[in-house]
């Protein structure tokens, strides 16, 4: 339970036998509302699964004063999942990135070689949520782009036994593919603003209700700006070439 005075733990219920049935979940939540006092409850937060959704709506129908809201962090994580599943560049780039990291991190001699080139830095960073982690990995790869290219063009790599394996060749091709690095940037432009929101809603520092609306709006704006930056360059060039010509076409 969260209130302006702080957060308290009320109780835990083993709901494994009822969690699949919306009606029972609703009854459970409703009894908690009763216990806490219906005049004290403003919002009930659950995850976004179908059964909770139904239960949430049932609760809102019975308890006229409160709001049911799906967990914002879960919601944002699902957006990142949709990116990965529905946008071709993301769908293609994320597995390639994972291929690089799993290939290197499952072979200790390659970890040594990697750390030699990255000066000890790592390619994996645990994220707050599952799908955020995929993008943070891409971020690490991007930061270590130079080191990785140097590693896979080095004599140490070429003479290693892994360079001749099938997986080794695939990973080498990915690392030396310019398009791959370009695509990583495209993916990050879309994902990093959302990961910022995720960090905000996941923080325990302050209640975030008063900040989510603005944060989400700004994330969308940042994404738009990141993609339009390219357009602007073209626009300035156009002005330059055409001298004083005025245009508002872009």
């Amino acid at each position, binding site marked *: 339970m969260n209130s302006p005075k702080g957060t308290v733990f009320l109780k835990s219920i083993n709901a494994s036998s009822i969690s699949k049935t919306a009606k029972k979940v609703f009854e459970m939540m409703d009894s908690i509302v009763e216990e806490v006092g219906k*005049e004290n409850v*403003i*919002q009930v937060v659950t995850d*976004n699964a179908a059964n909770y959704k139904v239960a949430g709506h049932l609760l809102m129908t019975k308890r*006229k*004063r409160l*709001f*049911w*809201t*799906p967990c*914002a962090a879960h*919601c*944002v994580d*699902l*957006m990142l999942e*949709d*990116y990965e599943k*529905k*946008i071709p*560049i993301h769908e293609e780039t994320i597995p390639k990135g994972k291929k690089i990291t799993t290939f290197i991190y499952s072979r200790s001699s390659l970890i040594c070689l990697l750390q030699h080139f990255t000066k000890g830095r790592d390619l994996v960073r645990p994220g707050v949520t599952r799908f955020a982690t995929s993008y943070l990995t891409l971020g690490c790869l991007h930061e270590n782009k130079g080191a990785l290219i140097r590693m896979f063009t080095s004599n140490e790599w070429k003479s290693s036994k892994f360079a001749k394996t099938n997986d080794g060749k695939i990973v080498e091709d990915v690392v030396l593919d310019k398009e791959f690095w370009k695509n990583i940037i*495209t993916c990050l432009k*879309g994902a990093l603003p*959302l990961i910022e929101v995720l960090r905000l809603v996941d923080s325990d520092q302050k209640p975030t*209700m*008063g*900040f*989510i*609306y*603005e944060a*989400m709006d700004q*994330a*969308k704006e940042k*994404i*738009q700006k*990141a*993609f*339009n930056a*390219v*357009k602007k360059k073209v626009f300035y060039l156009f002005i330059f070439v055409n001298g004083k010509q005025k245009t508002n076409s872009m």
Partner: protein
Amino acid sequence: MVSYLPLWNIIDERWDKQLHRPLHAAGYFLNPQMHYRPGFKADLEVKRGLMECITRMVEDEDEQTLIMFKLMILENEQNVLVVLWLPGQLI
């Protein structure tokens, strides 16, 4: 050219349709840190969210009207937001 629109569509699909906006919108409106920010805008979505919260959380219709009326005056007068609302009592 790669566009941001497919990304926006994904965000909107989850954000607008699945997350209930009223509380977030009201939180935005009533958070002084946001309210006095230069870029603050109380557009239709924000106002509608705020109204939805008021009508849902305050049973008494007269009281609802009073709150909205006060908000309106405060908005017009000097753009200072002072809403101190305790159940059954409007200051």
